[in-house]
C-alpha cells in the first residue's frame, strides 16, 4: 500500500517529534493532512447540525449516494468529484422535497430515504458492472484512500468547504431555531422548509467532500461521531460546535498518522475506532460527573 513512499517501510520510534517529522517528509502525506483538516472542520460544523436535527439517516444516505456518483463519473470519463457532488445534490433535493411540510416531520420519510439509499447503491453497482474490471476501484470508492490526494484536490476541497461554511454561517441562527423547535420557528415566520432543504444540500456537499477522503461508506463516522461526542460533553451550542471541530481534526490527524505507520490496515478502521473511543470516553466522563445514583440513564 505504501509503495508511494519509495519502498521505505516506515517504523515508529519512541521519538514522537521525529515520527511526525518523518511523516511530513512526503508530499502526499502533507496533502493528506491538509485535506484531512479541511474535511474534518467542514464535517464537524455540518455534522453538529445534523446530530441536533436528528437527520443521521439522511446524512448517511447522502454520503452513500456518492458511490454511484463517483462510479458513474468514472464510467462516462469525467472526474469523480463532479459525480460525487452531482449525485449528492440531487439526492439532497429529492429528500428535501419528498419530506412533508412539517419541518422535521417523519411519517413515510424513512422509507423514502431508505429506498433512495439502496437504489443509489444498486446504480453504483450497475455502473461498476458495466465498466468492468473495476473491483479494486470499488473498494477504494467505498472505503477511501488517502494516498492519492493531489494539491489540486486539496484546493477544490478548500474552496467548497469555504463556500459551505459561509452559507452555513449565514443561516446558522434561524437554522438553530428551526432545529430546536420547528413549530415555534414557523410561527415566528422562519422559512422552516426552505432552511431544511438548504441544510440537506449543505449536508450533501459536506458528504461529497468527506467521501473523497474516507470513502463513501465511512463518511458517516466523521459526520456523526464527533458531533455526538461533543454534545455529550456540553449542552451549550457554541462550545459544543467548537469541540466537534476539534475532536474531528484530532481524530482525523491521529488516524492518518496511525494509518501511515501500520500500512496494512485501512484508514477507515482507525478513523472509526478513534472516533468511537472518544465517544465512549465522553460518555464515561459524563457518568462520573453526574453522580451514578442521581441519573441512571446517562449513557445517552
Amino acid at each position, binding site marked *: 500500500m505504501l509503495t508511494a513512499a519509495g519502498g521505505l517501510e516506515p517504523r515508529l520510534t519512541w521519538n514522537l517529534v521525529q515520527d511526525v517529522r518523518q511523516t511530513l517528509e512526503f508530499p502526499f502525506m502533507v496533502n493528506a493532512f491538509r485535506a484531512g483538516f479541511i474535511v474534518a472542520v467542514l464535517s464537524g460544523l455540518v455534522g453538529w447540525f445534523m*446530530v441536533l436535527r*436528528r437527520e*443521521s*439517516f439522511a446524512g*448517511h444516505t447522502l454520503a*452513500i449516494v456518492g458511490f454511484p456518483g463517483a462510479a458513474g463519473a468514472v464510467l462516462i470519463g469525467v472526474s469523480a468529484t463532479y459525480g460525487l457532488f452531482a449525485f449528492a445534490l440531487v439526492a439532497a433535493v429529492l429528500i428535501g422535497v*419528498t419530506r412533508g411540510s412539517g419541518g422535521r416531520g*417523519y*411519517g*413515510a420519510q*424513512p*422509507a*423514502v*430515504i*431508505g*429506498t433512495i*439509499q*439502496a*437504489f443509489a*447503491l*444498486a*446504480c453504483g*453497482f*450497475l455502473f461498476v*458492472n*458495466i465498466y468492468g474490471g473495476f*473491483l479494486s476501484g*470499488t*473498494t477504494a470508492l*467505498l*472505503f477511501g484512500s488517502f494516498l492519492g490526494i493531489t494539491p489540486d484536490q486539496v484546493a477544490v476541497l478548500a474552496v467548497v468547504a469555504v463556500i459551505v461554511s459561509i452559507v452555513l454561517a449565514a443561516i446558522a441562527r434561524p437554522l438553530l431555531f428551526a432545529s430546536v423547535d420547528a413549530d415555534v420557528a414557523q410561527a415566528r415566520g422562519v422559512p422552516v422548509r426552505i432552511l431544511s432543504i438548504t441544510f440537506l444540500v449543505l449536508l450533501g456537499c459536506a458528504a461529497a467532500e468527506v467521501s473523497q477522503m474516507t470513502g463513501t*461508506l*465511512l463518511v*458517516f*463516522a466523521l459526520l*456523526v*461521531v464527533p458531533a*455526538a461526542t461533543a*454534545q455529550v460533553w456540553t449542552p451549550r451550542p457554541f462550545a459544543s460546535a467548537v469541540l466537534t471541530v476539534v475532536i474531528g481534526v484530532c481524530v482525523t490527524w491521529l488516524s492518518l498518522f496511525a494509518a501511515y505507520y501500520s500500512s*496494512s*490496515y*485501512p484508514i*477507515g*478502521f*482507525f*478513523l*472509526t*475506532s478513534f*472516533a*468511537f473511543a472518544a*465517544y465512549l470516553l465522553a460518555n464515561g466522563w459524563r457518568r462520573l460527573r453526574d453522580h451514578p445514583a442521581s441519573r441512571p*440513564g446517562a*449513557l*445517552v
Partner: protein
Amino acid sequence: MIAAGAVSAAAGTGLTEILGHDFMRHAFLAGVPIALAAGAVGYFMVLRSQVFTGDALSHVAFTGALGALAFGVDPRLGLFAATVLVSVILGMLGHRGRSDDVVIGTVFAWVLGLGVLALSIYASSDRAAANGAAGVNVLFGSIFGLSRSQATAAASVAVLLLLVAVAIARPLLFASLDEAVAAARGVHVRALGVGFLIIVGVTAAEATQAVGALLLLGLLAAPAGAAQRLTDRPYAALVLSSLLAAASMALGLTASYLLPKVPPSFGILAVASGVYAATFVVTPRGRRPAPAMPSR
C-alpha cells in the same frame, strides 16, 4: 409451497426456458421466500419508524460476513451471529428518548470500521486468492451463485421468518400503533420490541444472501413504503408489501437473466424502487398514507 406458486407464476410469462438453468432455479427458490419475508418484516419496520435501525443492521451484516471470511468460517455464521447480537444490543438501548438515532449511528459507524478491517485482513489472506470477489459479493449480493443446499437453507429460514412474523403480527401491530395502550392492555411491549429487532436482524442476514448487505434496505423499505401509500388497512398493507417484494424479486431476477449486463441485485432494486416511485405518481394528492408511528 409459496415459492413454487410464485415461481410458476413468473414462468408462466412465456419465459419457460428461464427455469431450465440450475442457477436460476436456485435463485428463485431462495429469492422469492426471502422477498416475502423481507416485505412483511419491512412493513413493520416502516410502521415502527425503525428504518434507520434496518440500515444499521444491514451494515452489521457486512461486518459479520467479512469477519467470518477473515477467520475462514462460513460467512453465513458470521452474518447471523452479528446481526442477531447487534439487534439485541440495539433493542436493549432502545426507548431511551431522543438520542436513539445518534447512538445507532455512532455504533454502526464503528462496526463498519471493523468491517473494513476484516475486509483488509481477508483481502491479504491466502483465502482471498481463491475467491477474490467475496468482499464485493457480500456488499452487493450474489444470488446467482447459490448452491442448491444454500438456496434450500435460505428458503427454509425465510419461511420460518414469515411464519413468526404472521404469528406475532397482531400484538406487534397493536404495540406499533399505540404503544402505551398496548402496554396497558398487557402486551409485553419491550419484549416484543427486542424480539422484532431480532427478526429484522435475521431478515437482514437472509436478504444479504440475495441482494447484498448494502442493498437489502431497499428490499425492506421500498415495498413497505409503497404498500403504505396504497392502502390504509394494516393487514392488507402487510400482505401487499410481501407480494410487492416477491414480485420485485421475480421480475428483477428475470430482467437480469434477459440483460446479462444488469446484475440481479440492481434489477430487483430497480423494480422495487420503481414501484414505490410510481405510488407517488398514481396516488391522488388528497389521499393520506397510513400514519407511521412518530420516532419518539
